[in-house]
């Protein structure tokens, strides 16, 4: 149930956005995709769920090349929780999760007991039974995210792609959602904004900058002040989480209140030296 990228490159409107990405997400592990805004994280994910077609390279699911599979068969193996999900039309939670069964059904198939059972279990799994008959648009951000994960679970795929599942959520829901995802026991690849949170939950992380893979591996090995600086171009302190020992990032100010000119940043010219 592994997910493997081999030399993946993606062009959008004639411009190369992602170049030669290669890594493997082993069976049942939770991999995080990290990198600054615009580094190509979403593009990599979209190439996996076939919104973008790779210009070069391959995506393999359990060793099978994705482009050789029919769209339905891909959807049975890979479920997606996309970023920025807005719903123009009014669906209840149950109806929305039931849509996850789409790749398993043929034209005139009705929803049968199996579908209803799977839908019910998925909603229960994310702890939203009491919301089953609510309209999706009436839910809070954290509740919406859980329902979308339930839809992905109902899809019955053993791979899950998440694009920024915790952005716009407060800290309680960030932890809840990632705890939920980590507990699913399926192969997960998620683009995550918050590096420390990713380090806390992911088995491996992959650091992307300018469409290229900088480094990848267990968070303890990958996330250092040097690699973070290389990817994000910013100075951070990396400490160990007191409970888990995972790397935790502490941002640094380029200019500290008690120290007008810190050594880490270029010192501005003193005002009296500005004139000729």
């Amino acid at each position, binding site marked *: 149930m592994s997910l493997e990228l081999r030399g993946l490159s993606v062009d959008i409107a004639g411009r190369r956005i992602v170049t030669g990405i290669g890594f493997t997400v082993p069976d049942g592990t939770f991999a995080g995709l990290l990198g600054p805004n615009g580094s190509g994280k979403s593009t990599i994910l*979209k190439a996996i*769920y*076939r*919104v973008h077609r790779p210009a070069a390279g391959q995506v393999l699911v359990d060793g099978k090349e994705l482009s050789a599979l*029919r*769209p*339905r*068969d*891909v*959807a*049975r193996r*890979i*479920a*997606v929780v*996309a970023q920025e*999900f*807005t*719903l*123009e*039309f*009014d*669906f*209840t939670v149950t*109806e*929305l999760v039931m*849509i*996850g*069964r*789409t*790749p398993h*059904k043929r*034209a*005139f198939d009705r929803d049968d007991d199996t579908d209803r059972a799977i839908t019910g279990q998925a909603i229960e*799994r*994310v*702890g*939203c*039974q*009491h*919301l089953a*008959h*609510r*309209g999706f*648009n*009436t*839910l*809070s951000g*954290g*509740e*919406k995210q*859980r329902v979308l994960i339930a839809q992905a679970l109902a*899809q019955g795929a053993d791979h899950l*792609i998440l694009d920024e599942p915790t952005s716009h959520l407060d800290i309680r829901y960030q932890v*809840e959602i990632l*705890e*939920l995802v980590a*507990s699913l026991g399926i192969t997960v690849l998620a683009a995550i904004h918050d590096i420390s949170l990713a380090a806390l939950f992911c088995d491996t992380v992959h650091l992307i900058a300018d469409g290229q893979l900088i480094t990848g591996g267990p968070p303890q090995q990958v996330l250092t002040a040097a690699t973070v600086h290389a990817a994000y171009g910013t100075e951070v302190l990396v400490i160990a989480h007191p409970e888990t020992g995972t790397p935790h990032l502490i941002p640094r100010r380029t200019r500290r209140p008690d120290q007008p000119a810190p050594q880490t940043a270029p010192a501005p010219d003193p005002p009296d030296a500005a004139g000729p």
Partner: protein
Amino acid sequence: MPPPCQRAPIAGRRLPLPAVLLACTVLLLVSMILGIAVGSVPVSPRAVLQVIADHLTGHPRYSVADAIVWEIRLPRVLLAALVGATLATAGTVVQVLVRNALADPFLLGVSSGASVGATAVLLFGAFASLGAWAISAGSVLGALIAMGAVFLVSRQERALSPTQLILCGVVLSALFESVTSFLIFRGNPQATQAVLFWLLGSFGLATWQQLPIPAIVLAAAMAYLLAQGRSLNALALGSESAVALGVDLHLLRRNLFIVTSLMAGVAVAVSGIIGFVGLVVPHIVRLMVGSEHRRVLPTAMLFGASFMVLGDLLARVIVAPQEMPIGVITAFIGAPLLIVLIRRRPYLYGAAG
């Protein structure tokens, strides 16, 4: 397992579909009997049923009531029902196709193209050899040309994008409308009045011969759309979600475009341009049964038919013995009804939760 989300449940349980469909069917039958019974010469509902029963059993009586019911009012009511069902269904699908609540079946250029064709027929006698079918032929041809133009212009790397579809539809509609205006400007005043009346839509010229084609188109389109019910639900979540759910997006969009254009084109050909039904009925129906397409489509079909039959009835009665253009009635009933419903359900259409 995370703790359950904290908030008291608000009732949002859906009405059972069989009950909704039964209610809509009863509404449609009552509307149709009323539509046949009421008019300049009233016929009692019992007599209406008697005439229909006589014809269905093969023993027509050739009375005055028989002629009024069977030759004039029944085809008219049936045509109104067919067109209402077609426009409501097509509107539902177009709104999902372009993911825009303001869309209607005429968004994609069909009506403006049809106007050019019909205007050419009425003003300059094009297709005169086809006799009574000339207007239909002209409008279908115009609709096909407009639809083809929108389809070609809005294609990007072999994909139809919703925004491109809306823009190209609106722009090309404006272009075709200006052609219609030009033709009217060049035409003679009497013929111009006929054009204006046609543009407003009417069922006044309904005959039995007009019924088979819209009926076949509606049945075929409905069968296709119901088969695609799940794909339509996936498409309603957005194009990326649809792809992630295994839907062949390019194929689906193209087919939906063709099916809805065909439906709108046929509706325009038999009854002119009747606005508002294709915009309003889908929203009313979604407020009743939600957005699940396997629920919305059959409900919209039945409710759209009833809406149009009642609208046509009002159009005949309000300023009798004259007839109001049906488009006036559909807008006058539809607009306030929709506003009331929207204001009672603020969470619909992406309002903040």
